[in-house]
């Protein structure tokens, strides 16, 4: 295989994801979610998953599908307001949830990709988020010490990618996909357009392929809009 990271499809991409795995899933709301991979995870039926993702989708789309099939043991997210099933499972205790500040979530991914094992941040000082964490005071300001994530798998969605795994994202579908792509021990990228090496301009690459282990061209993207809003 060497530098050619191509796999056939989502099913092949996730073949070694086992019960109990920790998986990062890109996307913000339903924007930029790895739709094909989520469908494949539901079909594969892997369970007791720990999912790191900013949101939990909606009841019948995105990660919401995995909640419906009770495949998720724990979610690490920053906002889960759009998914009533999620909130219900959270309040009932069926689902373990760690709510963390969105910036901390993104930075814990980035720092994993930057080889920085832990870092100080002001977000969450004086709140429940600080419970059990070390703090540091520097120049009179208090910071929480947060660890970089340690995720076996990161599954991301990009607009274009080449066979070396170089990725380009589109508009606000970039969001967590870029930092998560850098953070996975095994990063799986599904793209709308898979091209040969030499077709992407090296100046325009958002995530270089060194971070990506498997890439496939996805299909039948629904790209659902959560809050269709227009002006008069």
């Amino acid at each position, binding site marked *: 295989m060497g530098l050619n990271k191509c796999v056939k499809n989502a099913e092949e991409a996730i073949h070694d994801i086992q019960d109990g795995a920790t998986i990062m899933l890109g996307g*913000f*709301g*339903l*924007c*930029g979610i790895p739709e094909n991979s989520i469908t494949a995870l539901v079909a594969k039926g892997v369970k007791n998953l720990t999912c790191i993702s*900013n949101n939990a989708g909606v009841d019948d789309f995105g990660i919401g599908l995995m909640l419906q099939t009770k495949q998720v043991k724990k979610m690490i*997210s*920053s*906002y*889960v*307001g*759009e998914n009533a099933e999620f*909130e219900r499972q*959270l*309040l009932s205790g069926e689902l373990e*949830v760690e*709510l*963390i*500040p*969105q*910036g*901390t*979530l*993104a*930075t814990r*991914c*980035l720092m994993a990709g930057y080889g920085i094992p832990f870092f100080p*941040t*002001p*977000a*969450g*000082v*004086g*709140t*429940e*988020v600080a419970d059990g964490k070390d703090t540091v005071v520097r120049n009179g300001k208090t910071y929480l010490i947060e660890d970089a994530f340690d995720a076996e798998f990161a599954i991301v969605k990009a*607009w274009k990618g080449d066979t070396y795994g170089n990725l380009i*994202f*589109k*508009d*606000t*579908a*970039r*969001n*967590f*996909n*870029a*930092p998560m792509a850098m953070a996975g021990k095994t990063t799986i990228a599904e793209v709308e357009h898979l091209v040969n090496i030499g077709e992407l301009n090296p100046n325009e690459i*958002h995530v270089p392929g060194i971070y990506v282990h498997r890439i496939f061209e996805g299909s039948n993207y629904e*790209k*659902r*809009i*959560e*809050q*269709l*809003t*227009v*002006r008069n």
Partner: protein
Amino acid sequence: MGLNKNQIAQRIAKELHDGFYVNLGIGIPTLVANYIPHGIEVVLQSENGLLGMGPFPIAGHEDADLINAGKQTITTLPGSAFFDSAMSFGMIRAGKVHLTVLGAMEVAENGDIANWKVPGKMVKGMGGAMDLVASAKNIIVAMQHTDKAGNSKLLPACHLPITGLHCVKKVVTDLGVFEITKDGFLCTEHAPDVTIEEIKAKTAGKLTIAADCKIMEVA
């Protein structure tokens, strides 16, 4: 009677200065974008990875890859830029955002804010709120002065889970404009048909009425 949501937003928009980079939270804060004063230019930051958030698209031109922090479809403007979520919160924490406007359930007289959780009832998550309040230079809260039960939301101390400590600079409610000072809330403006007595009665936290407290100018 007090201000309506649009009037609260309109008053907050007066805090915008030319060249500001601004983050507007979901709810009443998003309405501030409708009242940007003529003659100044500001850039709206959407925490999911966009500087230069434009208006909602016209019907038929919605793009699923282009949404704001509230998951609504939007457009871009000349000068817009896309980036990822890590950079988004990097620029927030680095103090590059001049003004943050967000909603709240409670604001304390020392500037503490609670706006992310009602234990046992509403646990949607904090989103970007904790990063924003820990880092922004200027934080303005837009909210109703009392909750649905009539209880004051301007308190001596927050009861609900904290979002951030000592961070709010100003609160604009349906009743008036309140600065946070070392002596608690300072009312600098009151809504046109709202009396000082009503404001005092509905403010549980320590309150001073400014000597030059004036009537808010709203359309």
